[in-house]
């Protein structure tokens, strides 16, 4: 097993703004980071929920959007060359060291194995996972005939597919899966689509050419046995309830945040948050820190700037685990030539 283990100084779970800035603070103290995020891009809530909305309370930046903040943080941490493991869930954690000198081994959903003396949980509001429609008895179908993502297109060849949603994922998969599928239909609650106009046009052409169906309706229920889907019941104003025969449902209603596997990491958890001290932001486990929206302490505010502060203090204690024999030296980025070297800037 250990032949493919990646060893590093610090593993960061969550590449939101707080995880990203932690890379900077850790980097100033010579610690290398590997980050894991289930999203396929860095930026957490800022990039996923409000890339185009302006933020006004980042110190010294009067206004920047969620995406701009992410881009700037990525720029700022570039000198420290962090490694990103995106589109994978941090799933399993074990201590392969001792209690006094822990060594955390983290395994992700795609089989990446990381080891480090320090683990930083910057999991924010939790991992971003697809929203599941509140349809009664949907569970037996999930993963068998009802899906919230496409992992392998080939799995959908010769299927009779119903796709639900009106955004880019729904429309992109409609267009991409259409040539493979035996039949394909799209269901959306209104005859207006948020998705990129070009893909909406492509979809409308397929409908006009009789190559797929479009239903303006909402899903009411599923029909089938043992997880095998036979039909989906739709409801629309015009037609009332009616069944659409299909063997596969792909539902794209956007993402939501769930605490997820972090709950099984052996940490104290209170109302989906991880309690920490306010000196080091360490959890009940030595060498595991929690910063940003995921942590709790008296007076906590879920603000980006609080998460930045927490990262700076966390890095001080992380240094002691990563370099137990080195003395920590406090320096300013303005005046320290050794920090200038690390940042790749002229003194």
């Amino acid at each position, binding site marked *: 097993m250990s032949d493919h283990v990646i060893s590093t100084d610090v593993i960061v779970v969550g590449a939101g703004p707080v995880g990203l800035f932690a890379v900077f603070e850790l980097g100033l103290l010579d610690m290398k980071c590997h980050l894991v995020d289930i999203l396929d891009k860095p930026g957490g*809530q800022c990039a996923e*929920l*409000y890339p185009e*909305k302006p933020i006004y309370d980042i110190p010294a930046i009067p206004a920047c959007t969620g995406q701009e903040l992410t881009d700037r943080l990525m720029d700022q941490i570039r000198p420290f060359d962090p490694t990103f493991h995106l589109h994978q869930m941090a799933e399993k954690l074990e201590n392969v060291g001792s209690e006094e000198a822990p060594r955390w081994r983290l395994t992700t959903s795609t089989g990446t194995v990381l080891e480090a003396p320090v683990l930083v949980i910057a999991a924010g*509001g*939790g991992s971003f996972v697809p*929203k599941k*429609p*509140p349809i009664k008895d949907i569970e037996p179908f999930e993963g068998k005939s009802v899906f919230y993502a496409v992992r392998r297109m080939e799995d959908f060849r010769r299927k009779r597919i119903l796709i639900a*949603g*009106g*955004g880019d994922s729904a429309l992109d998969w409609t267009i991409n899966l259409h040539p493979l599928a035996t039949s394909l239909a799209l269901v*959306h*609650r*209104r005859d*207006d689509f*948020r998705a990129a106009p070009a893909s909406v046009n492509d979809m409308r052409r397929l409908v006009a050419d009789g190559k797929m169906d479009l239903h303006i309706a*909402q899903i009411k229920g599923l029909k089938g046995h043992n997880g095998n889907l036979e039909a989906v019941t739709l409801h629309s104003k015009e037609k009332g309830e009616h069944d659409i025969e299909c063997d596969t449902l792909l539902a794209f*209603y*956007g993402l*939501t*945040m*769930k*605490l997820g596997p972090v709950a099984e990491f052996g940490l104290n958890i209170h109302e*989906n948050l991880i309690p920490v001290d306010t000196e080091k932001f360490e959890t009940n486990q030595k060498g595991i820190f929690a910063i940003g929206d995921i942590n709790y302490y008296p007076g906590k505010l879920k603000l980006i700037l609080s998460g930045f502060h927490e990262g700076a203090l966390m890095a001080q204690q992380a240094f002691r685990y990563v370099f137990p024999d080195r003395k920590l030296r406090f320096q300013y980025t303005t005046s320290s030539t050794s920090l200038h070297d690390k940042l790749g800037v002229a003194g």
Partner: protein
Amino acid sequence: MHLLVRDQSGQVHELEAPEGWRVMEVIRDYGLPIKAECGGACACATCHVYVDDAWRDKLVAPSEEEIEMLDGAFEIDERSRLSCQILTREDLDGLLVTLAPGSEPA
């Protein structure tokens, strides 16, 4: 002013509401089960409510952004609104909303 909020189990709660607040904020701060993941930015659709018929026409009509965002909610009908996009006003005293499926916290 007060809001009336019917929770997922059917129980109606009377909530004191400061003026100019988002209905979502009143519901959340009272401790009723509402996810409201994006904190009122019209970016998550997890604050979906049904506005009682008697009140629907008294509300400011939903913005294009709210209508689009409702695509991420479930069991939508003509009473559907995102409660973070409704501001409390004196003349909405007694507004009755029902928490919709899919907006309960995880």
